[in-house]
């Protein structure tokens, strides 16, 4: 058991980051069939938020700064997401492939904006000191606090999203639009408003993921790009049926990763994981948890 602990912990840590980055994307994809290629840049906005917070409150790395960073990241990403939805995404709902291209263009613009504001060099956001230490389990095994913290944040975020989506009236409205847009519209739900809100919410969640990523190291204009393809894989492996599929997919990819990496190299493990995803999609082309649907286009 002792030997397995580091693997399990690493796997959980990877899963938590995958899940945190994928959750927003998955909600947007489930709602409107749009894959937001600028999702990585909303993660980047989150990363820079913690940098901005440290600039405002001094570079000590206090808990106040971290809390401010979370609020700022969510608000900033949410607001920019709302603007993007209003200006671009709204016009492309019927054309998912075109929305890929348009959001890719937005991603390039946002990256360049970040480069112009913060410079192309990476910056470091100071974090509370305790996060750099670790929990000593036994000789030679230390669990870093920042990883533990990210796992806790992920669980919190998932719980909040779950409660919001399934237990509040507003969340139920989103569910309704997700399941049957035409019918929801017929009973008087403003689907456009629901779309705008969902997209902004997805972006806001990406911002929170960005804060967590900024705990792991320095951040730069292209930080988001490093996570984006794995995130896409989690989303399509999970399917559009809701939170369950995404959680399952993130756990599957994340937990497999350290074990495969142990037996091969890190580049080979990426190859193997992609092949695994392909095999699963072979049997479940709509992902692990597809939306039940009887319509044919």
């Amino acid at each position: 058991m002792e030997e397995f602990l580091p693997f399990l912990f690493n796997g959980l840590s990877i899963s938590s980051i995958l899940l945190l980055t994928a959750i927003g994307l998955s909600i947007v994809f489930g709602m409107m069939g749009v894959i937001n290629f600028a999702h990585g840049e909303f993660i980047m906005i989150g990363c820079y938020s913690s940098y901005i917070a440290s600039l405002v409150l001094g570079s000590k790395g206090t808990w106040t700064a971290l809390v401010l960073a979370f609020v700022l990241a969510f608000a900033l990403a949410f607001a920019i997401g709302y603007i993007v939805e209003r200006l671009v995404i709204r016009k492309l709902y019927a054309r998912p492939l075109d929305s890929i291209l348009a959001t890719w263009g937005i991603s390039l613009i946002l990256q360049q904006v970040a480069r112009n504001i913060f410079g192309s060099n990476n910056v470091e956001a100071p974090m509370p000191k305790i996060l750099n230490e670790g929990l000593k389990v036994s000789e030679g095994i230390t669990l870093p606090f920042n990883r533990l913290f990210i796992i806790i944040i992920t669980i919190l975020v998932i719980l909040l999203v779950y409660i919001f989506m399934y237990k509040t009236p507003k969340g139920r409205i989103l569910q309704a639009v997700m399941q049957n847009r035409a019918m929801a519209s017929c009973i008087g739900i403003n689907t456009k408003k629901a779309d705008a809100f969902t997209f902004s919410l997805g972006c806001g969640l990406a911002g929170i993921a960005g804060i967590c990523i900024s705990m792991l190291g320095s951040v730069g204009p292209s930080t988001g790009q490093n996570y984006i393809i794995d995130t896409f894989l989690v989303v399509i492996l999970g399917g559009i049926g809701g939170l369950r599929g995404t959680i399952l997919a993130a756990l599957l990819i994340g937990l497999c990763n350290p074990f495969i990496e142990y037996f091969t190299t890190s580049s080979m493990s990426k190859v193997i994981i992609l092949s695994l995803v392909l095999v699963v999609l072979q049997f479940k082309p709509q992902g692990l948890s597809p939306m039940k649907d009887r319509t044919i286009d």
Partner: protein
Amino acid sequence: MKQKIIYAILIIAIILPVLLLSDFRLSILSKFLVFSIVAISVNLLWGYTGILSLGHGAYFALGGYAMAMYLKLQSQPLPDFMEWSGIETLPWFWKPFQYVPFALVMVVVLPVALALLVGIPLFKSGTKGVYFTIISQAITLIMSILFIGQQGFTGGSNGITGFKGVLGYALGDPTLTKILYGLVVIVLIGIYFISKFMLNTHGGTIIQAIRDRETRLRFLGYKTHTFKVITLATSAAICGIAGALFVPIVGIISPSIMSVLMSTEFVIWVAIGGRATLLGPIVGALTINYAKTIFSESLPEYWWYFYGFLFITATLIIPKGIVGSLLKKKWFKNVLLK
């Protein structure tokens, strides 16, 4: 009569650059024409069949690497990067590449093999739309990781470069530049007419029907996935040929061609030029690459803004692209089609 004038203008347009442009510019133009071939292959898949691949860099690179391996072996019996990684004998899969026919066949076979490997399982299981797009992108990323990781066999992130020459001429020789230009023009025209012919066959109609309403086609009894696999393979083959032409012109092939950025660039050429039009991809590839050259010479800072807006423009403002929008105009139709 009109057709003759158009052909005459075309021939002049092809010959003029040879006379007017410096060798440096001519080789850049050849590179752009190679990109037009890539754009045609992307258009075949996206514009006509409705399958968006963000992974055409992989097919391009495979064609390019096949050519580069041949050229490298012509320059050195044992490539220098192998020595650096401590490999003393030529690996078995490199050996046949010293023969031209084998290398030329591989230029097409390797990309097609990858296309079949990817396409058959995916299309058979009914993967479509966004799902295929993301998987194609991931596969290209994996390919580039593999190529960078295998430093000793592929030259790592530097790729394969340092060729002594092509066809007996040193690289950069003015005569060679002109020969390559001619070759690219001929291949481009050939591929243009082949794809035009293919689209006019029954199969060509079927793939366009797949784009418009695949389910209905399946209910009519067509095995749509077979047509999709064939289109993907054809597209990959064309892309591989372009890759092979790219290497002697530029003198290097490296995994950077498999980056997400590059493969997306292929698509935007088609989108701006005009998807599902025959001329569109060529116009788009030439225009955007020309714009890119101008920007990178004068305003490199603003290129990314401009480029980002291009994507939004291509989808929101001119979804039909340059050629597609022009085709709606009566005068343009009269000039081109009568």
